[in-house]
C-alpha cells in the first residue's frame, strides 16, 4: 500500500517536472515590450535595399479607379489590432455595412483582418515575407526600420500630391503627416491623438481630502485639463511625506518595472534611447548625447533613490508588472505617476474604481513632443498590396471620411451605437461596456479619430477633440521632430545595448538601488553601454540627424 502511494506521488512529481519545462512556453509570449519608451528593436535583416516603388503610373486617381467598378471592386485586406475582444458576428455585420458604403463610393471591398497585440508583429512579418494578401496595416514605430529594409513597406510619398494625400495633410497638418518618414520613405501616418507625455500624479481623492492636500493645491474633482499650473516634483515629496506620516502602512507612490522616466524628465529618445537629445537643458538641441551621462538623468534617478530610501516608492517596484489599476484597487497605494490629458480622470476612475485627483508635475515650462510621441502606431501600406493606389485611397478615407472611421470604430449606428442629443456617441440602450458586441475603442491607434464621434463615457463633451488638440498645442516640439533614425544596420548593437540597459534600468528608475549607490550603478551602466557599442550607434545617429537637418532647411 505504502509503495503504491509512493509510486503515485512519484508520478505526480514526474508530470510536474515535465511541465516545469514544457508548460512555461505556453504563457510567456506577451513579453514584447508594451511600455511607451522601452523600445526593443527586433533584429531585422541587415541589407539596406530601398523599398521597391511598384506601379508605374504616377497617380492621378482616375486611372486606378477606372480599373474597378461597383460590380468589380478592389478587394482590400485591412489589418489592425483588436485590443478589445469583439463579437465575430457583429464584426462581420460591420464589415458588410462598411462595404455597402465603400463599394459604391470608392470601388473598394474591405476585408477586416483583426490581429492580437500579442502576435501582431510575428503575423505581419510573416505575411510580408510570405507575400500574402495584405494592403493596409499598422506599423509600430520600433518595427519600421526593419520592415522597410526587408522591403515590406510601400513608400507613400508618390501619392502625397494627389487629392487623397492632400486630404490627409489637411487633417493631420503638414508636420504630423510627414512624421512617419525614414530615409525619405513615407511609411505611415500617425493616429490623431494626445501626444504629450508630461508627467503627473494620479492620487486617491479620499486621502487628499482627509489630509488637506485638496485645499493646499486647489485640487478639484474631474479637473484634468492643463491650465498652466504645474508643480515641481519636490512638492510631490512633501505630499508623500504627509501621507506616510498619517498612514504608515500605505505606499505613497506606485512605480512598476516598466520605464516611467518620461513622467519625470523628458528626453527626445530618438526611437531607442541610445543617444538622445537632452531636451530639458536645451529645447532646440540637436546634439546626440548619452542619456545616462546627462545631469538631467542623474538628477532624476537621485531624486527617485532618495524617495525610495524614505519609503515613498512601492517596495517591489523594481520587479513589479501588475499595473496601477491592480495595486490601486487593492487599497494600500496612494498614487501613481502617469501622463495626464483631458478626459484622463474619468477613464482612470473607472479603471481604478475610486475617486481620484490629477496634478501636473514637471520641472520644465512645457511638455515636449518628439517624433515617437506622435508616431506611435502608423497606418501604412504593405508592399504586398496588389494596387497600392487603391490602398492609399482607403488610408486617406480613414483620415478624412468620418463615415468610414465611425463604422470601423463604433460600428453601425442604431445597432452598435447611438448619437446622443449633444453630438456624442454611446452604446445603444441596453448595452454598456460589459455586454457590447462591437466597439473598437482604438481611435488613438490608427486613423483619424478626431473626425469620428466623441465617445461619451460620462464627462466627455462633443468638443473633446478640440480639447485634445489644444492639449497638444501647448507643448514644444523637439529640434529633431520628424526625424526617424534608421537602425537597421545596427540591430546587433541595439540588442546588446538593450540587454546592458535592462540589467540596470529598473533598479535605477524605480530608485530601488538607494541613494548611496546611484553614481556607482550609473558608472557600471555606462561602462556596459559603451562596451556594447554605444559610441558607434550615437555617431551613426548624429550623422543621420545632421543629414536630415540639412534637408529640412
Amino acid at each position, binding site marked *: 500500500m505504502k509503495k503504491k502511494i509512493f509510486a503515485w506521488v512519484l508520478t505526480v512529481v514526474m508530470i510536474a517536472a515535465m511541465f516545469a519545462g514544457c508548460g512555461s512556453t505556453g504563457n510567456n*509570449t506577451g513579453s514584447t515590450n508594451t511600455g511607451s519608451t522601452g523600445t526593443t528593436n527586433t533584429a531585422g535583416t541587415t541589407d539596406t535595399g530601398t523599398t521597391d516603388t511598384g506601379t508605374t503610373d504616377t497617380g492621378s486617381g482616375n486611372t486606378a479607379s477606372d480599373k474597378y467598378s461597383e460590380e468589380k471592386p478592389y478587394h482590400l485586406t485591412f489589418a489592425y489590432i483588436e485590443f478589445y475582444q469583439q463579437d465575430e458576428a457583429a464584426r462581420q455585420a460591420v464589415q458588410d455595412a462598411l462595404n455597402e458604403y465603400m463599394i459604391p463610393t470608392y470601388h473598394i471591398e474591405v476585408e477586416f483582418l483583426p490581429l492580437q497585440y500579442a502576435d501582431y508583429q510575428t503575423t505581419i512579418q510573416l505575411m510580408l515575407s510570405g507575400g500574402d494578401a495584405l494592403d493596409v496595416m499598422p506599423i509600430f514605430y520600433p518595427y519600421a526600420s526593419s520592415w522597410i529594409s526587408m522591403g515590406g513597406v510601400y513608400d507613400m510619398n508618390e501619392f502625397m500630391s494627389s487629392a487623397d494625400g492632400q486630404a490627409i495633410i489637411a487633417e493631420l497638418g503638414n508636420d504630423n503627416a510627414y512624421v512617419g518618414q525614414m530615409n525619405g520613405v513615407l511609411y505611415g501616418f500617425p493616429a490623431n491623438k494626445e501626444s504629450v507625455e508630461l508627467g503627473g500624479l494620479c492620487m486617491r481623492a479620499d486621502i487628499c481630502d482627509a489630509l488637506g492636500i485638496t485645499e493646499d493645491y486647489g485640487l478639484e474633482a474631474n479637473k484634468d485639463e492643463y491650465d498652466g499650473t504645474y508643480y515641481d516634483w519636490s512638492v510631490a515629496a512633501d505630499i508623500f511625506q504627509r501621507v506616510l506620516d498619517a498612514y504608515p502602512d500605505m505606499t505613497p507612490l506606485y512605480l512598476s518595472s516598466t520605464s516611467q522616466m518620461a513622467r519625470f524628465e523628458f528626453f527626445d529618445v530618438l526611437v531607442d534611447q541610445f543617444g538622445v537629445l537632452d531636451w530639458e537643458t536645451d529645447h532646440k538641441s540637436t546634439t546626440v548625447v548619452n542619456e545616462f551621462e546627462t545631469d538631467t538623468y542623474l538628477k532624476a534617478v537621485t531624486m527617485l533613490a532618495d524617495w525610495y530610501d524614505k519609503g515613498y516608492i512601492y517596495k517591489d517596484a523594481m520587479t513589479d508588472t501588475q499595473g496601477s489599476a491592480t495595486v490601486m484597487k487593492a487599497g494600500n497605494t496612494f498614487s501613481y505617476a502617469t501622463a495626464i490629458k483631458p478626459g484622463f480622470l474619468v477613464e482612470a476612475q473607472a479603471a481604478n474604481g475610486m475617486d481620484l485627483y490629477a496634478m501636473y508635475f514637471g520641472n520644465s515650462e512645457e511638455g515636449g513632443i518628439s517624433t515617437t510621441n506622435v508616431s506611435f502606431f502608423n497606418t501604412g501600406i504593405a508592399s504586398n498590396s496588389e494596387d497600392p493606389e487603391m490602398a492609399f485611397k482607403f488610408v486617406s478615407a480613414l483620415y478624412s471620411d468620418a463615415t468610414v472611421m465611425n463604422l470601423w470604430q463604433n460600428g453601425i449606428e442604431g445597432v452598435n451605437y447611438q448619437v446622443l442629443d449633444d453630438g456624442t456617441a454611446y452604446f445603444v440602450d441596453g448595452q454598456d461596456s460589459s455586454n457590447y458586441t462591437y466597439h473598437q*475603442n482604438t481611435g488613438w491607434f490608427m486613423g483619424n479619430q478626431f473626425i469620428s464621434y466623441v465617445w461619451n463615457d460620462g464627462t466627455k463633451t462633443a468638443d473633446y477633440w478640440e480639447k485634445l488638440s489644444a492639449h497638444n498645442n501647448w507643448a514644444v516640439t523637439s529640434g529633431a521632430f520628424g526625424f526617424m533614425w534608421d537602425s537597421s544596420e545596427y540591430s546587433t548593437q541595439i540588442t546588446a545595448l538593450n540587454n546592458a540597459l535592462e540589467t540596470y534600468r529598473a533598479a535605477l528608475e524605480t530608485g530601488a538601488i538607494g541613494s548611496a549607490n546611484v553614481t556607482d550603478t550609473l558608472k557600471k551602466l555606462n561602462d556596459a553601454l559603451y562596451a556594447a557599442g554605444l559610441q558607434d550607434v550615437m555617431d551613426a545617429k548624429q550623422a543621420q540627424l545632421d543629414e536630415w537637418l540639412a534637408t529640412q532647411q
Partner: protein
Amino acid sequence: MKEKPFSRYQILANVVMILMTLVVVLPFLLLLMSSLTDENILVANGYSFLPEKFSLASYQYIIQSGDKIAKAYLISILVTLIGTVIHVLLAALMSYPLAVRNLPGRKIMMFYVFFTMLFNGGIVPSYIMWSSFGVKDTIWAQLLPVLLLNAWNVMMIRTYFQTSIPESLYEAARIDGASEYKIFSVIVLPLGKPILVTMGTFAGLTYWNDWTNALYYIVRNKNLYNVQNLLNQMVSNIQYLTQSTNSNVSSAAASIPATGIQMAIAFVAILPIMMIFPMFQKYYAKGITLGSVKG
C-alpha cells in the same frame, strides 16, 4: 511481505524523495490556491497557501469568455490525439529500417535524419513552404508543421529497437520466413511498446503545449485556436491592458482579475495532461533505457 525495521538508507532515501516531491508539488498547490484567491487579497498580501478570501472570479471570467474555451479544448484534444498517433506511427516506421543492421545506405539515411536536428530552414522559409501547401487557416496548420516527426524521437526508438530487442529474435523470424512488415507488426511494435508509449507521451505533450503553429499559420480563422493559443492570447492581452502607459484603458478591461486569471489559466491548461498521464505511467516507468525482453 514481512515488516522490516527501516534501514538508515531507507529513511534517508525517503526524506530526500519527500523533499524533492515537495519542491515540485508545492508550486502547483500554490498555483491552484492563488487562482482561487480574491484578486485584491492577492495583490495586498501576495501568494499564500491558505488565502484569506476565496474567489472563483478568475474561473468565472474564463468560462464567461463563451463557448470559445470548449471549442478550443476540442481542437486541442483532437489535434493531440491524432497528432500523437501519426507521430508515433511515422517515427516507428522510420526507425525500424534504420535499426536493421545490413540495410544498404543506412549511414546516409541516419545522417539525413540526424542533420535535421542541427539545421532547419528557419521560420520564414518554413512559412512560405507550408503556406504554399495550403495549410493556412485550416486544421492542418495545428497538425502538420514542425510537430509531425522529430529526429530525436526517431533516434531514441531506433536505439531501442536495436539494443533492447535481441538480434536473435529478428533472425528467428527471418528464418521462419516472416516478411519485414510481418516482423515490424508482430515483433517490433509489441516489444517496442515501452519506448513507443514514452515517445508518444513526449509527442502528445508537444502537441498539447504548442501554440506557435497557430501563431504563424492561423490568422483569419480564430475558431481553430487551441487552448494554449486562447490562453496565450488572453494573458498577453491582459498584460498589455494592465501595463499600458497609454491610459486608453476602458473600465471593462481594467476590471479583469489579472494575476488570478493568469494562475487559473495555467491551471486549466495543465489539468487534462495531469489526469491522463498516470495511465501511461506503467510504460513510462519501464523507461527509455531500462526495458528489455525477458525469457
